[in-house]
């Protein structure tokens, strides 16, 4: 399989990473959920983030997307600091995410969920919208058909008008991905997208993640507990334990790392 790794490792030195964490730290009272973490993610990578429960993975995602702000350190996107921005500003820059504990707009239809996420790519205001003046009607039409395409992509277009909360768990996770893609991001953060899926679905999801990286030129950060999926899918993997980065590298190296085996993978 052709991998972008080689190209990356050659040009790493002269290219700004898409994302870079510099000494990122986040405290919650006495707890240090993320402790002095530094790493960078290159363009086009599928970058895995693993670690035991409570290791700080979701907290790290929250720091990247502005849901919380770091106690110390910085987060950079394409060389610019984003640690002080608010979530919608970061979304506008091109970073989209899904949530570990699904956060769809539960009472709204699948289609509406995806339409809402095209907010930043549309601009009609109250009066043009209400009166149906240009560019509102065309924009509305485009938003709808784009939402439909994205639902098609994740295989949910036949139930576009159904309420999001009526979908089974796995479909809700797919719907969250469609919603995130509606932002047309360059970086996509997936927080345990395979949780609650059976092995077959997990394999499909893995193929799907590869497909959307290709199709939308994405850089993908992936939190996932299912080790085979992570190892098979990711170009590089970072391992967190008690908020600290204990290993980072390609899957084979991480897999054989002694600290990682002790903290997470276990000896078997």
């Amino acid at each position, binding site marked *: 399989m052709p991998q972008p790794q080689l190209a990356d490792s050659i040009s790493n030195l002269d290219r700004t990473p898409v994302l870079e964490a510099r000494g990122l730290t986040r405290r919650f009272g006495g707890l240090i959920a993320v402790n002095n973490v530094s790493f960078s993610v290159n363009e086009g990578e599928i970058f895995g983030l693993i670690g035991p429960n409570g290791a700080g993975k979701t907290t790290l995602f929250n720091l990247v997307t502005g849901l919380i702000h770091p106690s110390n350190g910085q987060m950079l996107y394409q060389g610019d600091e984003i640690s002080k921005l608010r979530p919608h500003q970061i979304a506008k820059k091109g970073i989209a995410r899904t949530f570990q504990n699904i*956060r769809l707009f539960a009472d709204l239809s699948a289609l509406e969920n995806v339409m809402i996420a095209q907010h930043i790519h*549309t601009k009609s205001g109250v009066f043009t919208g209400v009166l149906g003046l240009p560019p509102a009607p065309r924009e509305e039409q485009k938003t709808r058909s784009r939402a439909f395409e994205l639902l098609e992509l994740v295989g949910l277009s036949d139930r576009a008008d159904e309420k999001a909360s009526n979908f089974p768990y796995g479909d809700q996770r797919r719907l969250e991905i469609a919603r995130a893609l509606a932002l047309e991001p360059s970086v996509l953060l997936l927080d345990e997208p395979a949780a609650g899926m059976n092995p077959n679905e997990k394999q499909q999801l893995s193929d799907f993640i590869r497909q959307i990286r290709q199709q939308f030129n994405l850089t993908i950060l992936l939190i996932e507990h299912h080790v085979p999926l992570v190892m098979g899918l990711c170009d590089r993997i970072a391992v967190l334990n008690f908020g600290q980065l204990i290993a980072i590298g390609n899957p084979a190296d991480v897999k054989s790392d002694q600290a990682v085996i002790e903290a997470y993978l276990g000896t078997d």
Partner: protein
Amino acid sequence: MNDFVSTYGFLFVSMILGAMLGLSLYLPLMAGQLSLASPGFYALGGYVAAILSTKVFQVKEPFPIALLLLEMLIAGIICGLLGVIVGVPALRLRGIYLAIATIAFVEILRVLALNLDVTGGAVGIFGIPQPFQSPIEYLWIVLPLLLISMAFVYRLEKIRVGRAFIAIREDELAADSMGINPTYYKALAFTLGAILAGVVGAISAHFLNTWNARQGTFDASIIYLTFVLIGGSRTFLGPVLGGMVFTALPEILRAIADTPGLPVWLAQFLRDGRLIIFGLLIVIGTRFFPQGLVTPQLLKRRSRSQANR
């Protein structure tokens, strides 16, 4: 017929004004914000019209409709500006804290109105000129305005801005993560409600002929809240119907109280216990009908059963 009109003309117009006040609470609620500021903006809009028509324009009756429309416009603009000024800081508060802050805002305006000269102090402003011969003729203004505001909110729910409101109501954090600026859209929803309340106030000042500090009170906050909470908070038809029904309710209770043979205490209660009854309705209603009586599901079921026929 003339009797009917003179008895109920006043009530009909009041009901429509009530429906619009319900909508003015519904607008911020679309973005998930429970604001009780409407009576404050209503009072302010009324003072704008009362002051302009008695102190600035000074024309002979009948008061020109064009000037009434101009007053509505000015009241809307002033309330809109104040809505932005008050809304941006107040909307940092959430849920019940926002509700309390907006009640405080209404109180501040009331105390100001009581103590300023321009508002006529405790006495208020009298003899606000009439554009019409009889109350029922106000329908010429309020009915189109109600239809316009209903059409506005109906459309709003289907466009980009309304979707942003609803996304914030559903999950503010998720909406934020999807690129929607919650501060901006909450302030916008709040301001639209403020504008509508102000415009309604401007008409009401003429309609009621006098305007004073009793117009925007805590009582009114509770009553408007009933419009929305019992009428329905998930579709604009809820507050419209709620506003009409609950504006008429005190009149109905008064009519019942007048039936002969009723014990004196009960008749008294029906006449004066308005707020107690509204309070009870809120408690009971929100317990058993958390989304109010008119819900989107109810409307969907109706339209579906009609389609099936």
